[in-house]
């Protein structure tokens, strides 16, 4: 791989260096072009099209808000013993490459706590994942890059959203690899995680290859693992677990394949023990951009990323694999509330860009009624493409 990477660098450098310094035209000057269909639009269109897009986005937001205010109903969904939806959201700004976790009030966006990752032996640590049990207790995986060790920590939130100190999980597995994705059952007794072998480049976790899927039973300190087969070994994505810790769902195969698996499956490979529920390619363009199993394990809530609008929020039946669109709000899922009542969504519009990745919405489940979270906007450092979230 290293030799191939070197050849790639040399080839790209050679091709790029054909653009010589001093040959570029001045900013704002047009080059004489061969006749070709122009992809530029006239100046009136440059004004009218964004204005129309903005008007359409505003209309959608108003309609969504009206729909939410008229149609929002009690969840009517198996609540799995939780009294209500959590008030706080834990967000990891840069997911793998450092940065403190933020605890934010869901309603107002107020920052209630910052949680710094522990430093091991003075060396860089990176976050592998954070998950909530739905009762204000959280577990997170941290990898110390230079000493090649992953540790699982836990913390809790007070009623005011203040985080306790991180404490190592008593049932600490020995993990030299990197953990990608973590999911905790509602009693906190089952913790599922993916185990990757990653290339480390300049102190940063780079290309990762999935090695195993694991479920730790905290009380017995026993870990079940299943090997991840296949030559490509792409990392496990969007790992989630049911409230009782009995079933897992996750995405594999370059974000294309949604699978479910029993957390008590017999030893073997993930391919042998899991079942394919849906393929993203059958739902339209793009791979899965979010997936989370419902607390009772009957459904998986998914969003796909087609690259361009429209996006969709769907509910996939675990039993039949049938998918149906439950929300017309365009966006990508960020986190499923552990009670299964609400999905936090980043709703997208054509006007969104790097600085404004979108607006937050809460999708009531399973009906799909939308409530825009008008009080706050996702800060830039919580870009959903980098960040991890847990209610």
């Amino acid at each position, binding site marked *: 791989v290293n030799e191939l990477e070197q*050849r790639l660098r040399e080839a790209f*450098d050679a091709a790029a260096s054909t653009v010589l310094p001093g040959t570029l035209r001045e*900013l704002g000057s047009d080059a004489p072009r061969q006749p070709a269909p122009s992809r530029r639009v006239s100046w009136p269109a440059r004004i009218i099209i964004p204005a129309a897009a903005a008007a359409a986005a505003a209309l959608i937001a108003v309609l969504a808000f009206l729909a939410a205010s008229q149609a929002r109903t009690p969840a009517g969904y198996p609540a799995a013993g939780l009294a209500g939806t959590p008030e706080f959201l834990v967000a990891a700004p840069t997911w793998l490459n450092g940065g403190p976790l933020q605890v934010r009030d869901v309603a107002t966006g107020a920052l209630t706590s910052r949680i710094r990752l522990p430093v091991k032996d003075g060396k860089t640590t990176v976050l592998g994942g954070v998950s909530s049990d739905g009762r204000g207790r959280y577990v997170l995986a941290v990898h110390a890059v230079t000493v090649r060790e992953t540790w699982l920590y836990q913390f809790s939130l007070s009623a005011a959203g203040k985080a306790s100190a991180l404490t190592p999980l008593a049932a600490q597995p020995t993990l030299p690899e990197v953990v990608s994705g973590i999911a905790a059952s509602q009693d906190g007794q089952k913790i599922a995680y993916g185990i990757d072998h990653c290339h480390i480049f300049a102190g940063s976790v780079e290309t990762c290859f999935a090695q195993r899927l694991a479920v730790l039973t905290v009380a017995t300190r026993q870990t079940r693992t299943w090997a991840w087969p296949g030559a*490509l070994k792409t990392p496990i994505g969007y790992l989630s677990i049911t409230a009782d810790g009995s079933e897992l769902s996750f995405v594999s195969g370059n974000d294309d394949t949604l699978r479910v698996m029993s957390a008590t499956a017999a030893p073997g490979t993930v391919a042998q023990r899991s079942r394919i529920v849906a393929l993203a390619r059958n739902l339209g363009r793009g791979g899965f951009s979010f997936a989370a199993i419902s607390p009772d394990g009957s459904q998986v809530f998914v969003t796909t990323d087609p690259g361009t609008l429209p996006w969709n929020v769907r509910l996939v039946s675990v039993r039949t694999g049938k998918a149906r669109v439950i929300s017309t709000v365009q966006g990508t899922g960020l986190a499923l509330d552990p009670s299964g009542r609400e999905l936090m969504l980043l709703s997208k519009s054509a006007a969104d860009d790097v600085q404004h990745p979108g607006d937050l919405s809460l999708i009531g489940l399973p009906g799909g009624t939308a409530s825009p979270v008008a009080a706050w906007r996702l800060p830039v450092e919580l870009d959903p493409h980098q960040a991890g979230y847990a209610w």
Partner: protein
Amino acid sequence: VTGSATALGQDDLVRELYQAHALTLVRLARLLVGDQQSAEDVVQEAFLSLHKALPRLADHDAVMPYLRTVVVNGARSELRSRRRAARRPVRHEVPQPSAEAAAMISEDRRAVLAAVASLPRRSREVLVLRYYLDLPVHEIATTLSVSRGTVSSTLSRAIATLASQLREEL
């Protein structure tokens, strides 16, 4: 990034940014679209877009990520417009690298570039951002507006495919 919006007019600031970063960005676009002229068009459009977006950018550290994303999106638009043009009855000539440019690239490197060109669009983008700009995974994820998991898996798959095509052992 040097200067500031307060010390310089917005036009001057954009021109200063162009002077500082145009070469890097045109080279990036050249790798994505295949020829300098189209690459320059893409970058000019990116700076036009920057001019409009500048008041909304939180700080100057956000400028380069913004420009990279706009350049990648512009390159996609350019390639899409070529595909549309190719389907029309009147054929238009697709810009090609010049003979001089081709002569500057050795046989082995041309083979590598040809193998890269045969990959899906997202794979090409990830490889260029990783191995030309040396961006870490999370910055590639931001540039392409995808998850870092998608970047990692795309990178792994692209490397494996390239290795197979170039008859290398992983």
